[in-house]
């Protein structure tokens, strides 16, 4: 039976997750394509965060702490082969449903799709970059130097340009 302290911690944690759940959704969306897989990953990140919550000291921002948990969980997320493995047509169907009518949005969609082609490590860097984290913070979260982050970000930009050009050419 949960104690009073546990119940207080739980309600406090639930409130924090509710406030910051967009971070988890963002990470899930970045790492997993299929909606039911996203739900599984959302659950796994939330559970990992809950297990780690007693060690959250509060000297870091909750959002930064949650990003760390979410990224570590998503990058190492182990997906067993599904009963119905995802096919290219599944992805395409899913994207068609979301396909924007605005040409600018279509361009963004292309870029978004290109990010999906990056490795897990590169996706993490892009996510943190999009969140406006300074290179020093990204370096700390990733376990590499700030200089390495800068070099990697330049390589990612080049990679994205190549992927989007290829996608445009294929279309």
């Amino acid at each position, binding site marked *: 039976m949960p104690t009073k302290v546990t119940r207080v911690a739980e309600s406090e*944690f639930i409130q924090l997750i509710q406030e910051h759940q*967009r971070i988890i959704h963002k990470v899930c969306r970045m790492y997993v394509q299929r909606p039911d897989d996203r739900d599984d990953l959302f*659950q796994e990140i939330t*559970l*990992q965060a809950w297990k780690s919550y007693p060690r959250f000291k509060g000297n870091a921002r909750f959002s930064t702490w949650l990003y760390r948990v979410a990224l570590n969980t998503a990058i*190492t997320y182990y997906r067993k082969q599904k009963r119905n493995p995802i096919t290219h047509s599944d992805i395409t169907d899913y994207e068609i449903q979301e396909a924007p009518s605005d040409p600018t949005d279509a*361009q*963004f969609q292309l870029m978004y799709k290109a990010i999906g082609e990056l490795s897990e490590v590169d996706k993490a860097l892009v996510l943190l970059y999009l969140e406006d984290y300074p290179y020093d913070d990204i370096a700390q*979260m990733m376990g590499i130097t700030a200089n390495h982050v800068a*070099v990697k970000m330049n390589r990612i930009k080049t990679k994205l340009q190549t992927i989007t050009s290829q996608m445009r050419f294929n279309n």
Partner: protein
Amino acid sequence: MELDELKNYLNRQLEEQSPLQSSGEISAILRNKSIGIVHRIRKNLWIEFIISLLAVVVILYAKYLAGNYVMQIYFNIFLAITLLFLPIFGWLIRSTYQLSPELSSVKTNLTRLHLLIARFTRFYFIFSMAIFLPVVFYSLIAAVYERNNQSLMESLQFYMHLPAVPLLLIGLYILVFGIFLFFFARWYIRLLYGKYLDKLKDLLMELNTPE
């Protein structure tokens, strides 16, 4: 288009398309069990640990019941192997609790996870081989002992004095069985964790790539 321009788009997409969870839904998630790999490995290790503990009790009882010398040695070998692996399983279980995604960087977390799974698969393989090979060897000895009620040395001598063909066949049987087990265990472990270990290795290599 620059990557920076994507920021607003990404946030807008997420706001429009991600169903926000209510406090009740989040609370329900907290009651669920983890589906992560560390949880799975920990569960497997606990099962191995408990089975090994039970095996010790069963072996001790069987050893007590076994009257003959050959079976006593047979059970002693099993007991020694099981007792040797018990602390290893315990140590691996402890390592799974030391992985904390909130404290370590992505690189440290990947390194620790890779090390844990590599160790787990290595010991699992050694354990499988260590258990099965004595079974083959001693089943041969026991077969002669049970039939002729001979001593251990006499049972060994029985094989030494066998004509070349049956001896060769027995040797071949042990060899084929051993090779089969070796490759089967390797294949099975690789099937379970091989691809995942390769993925972790690739990610680590990516993070370790010179600047």
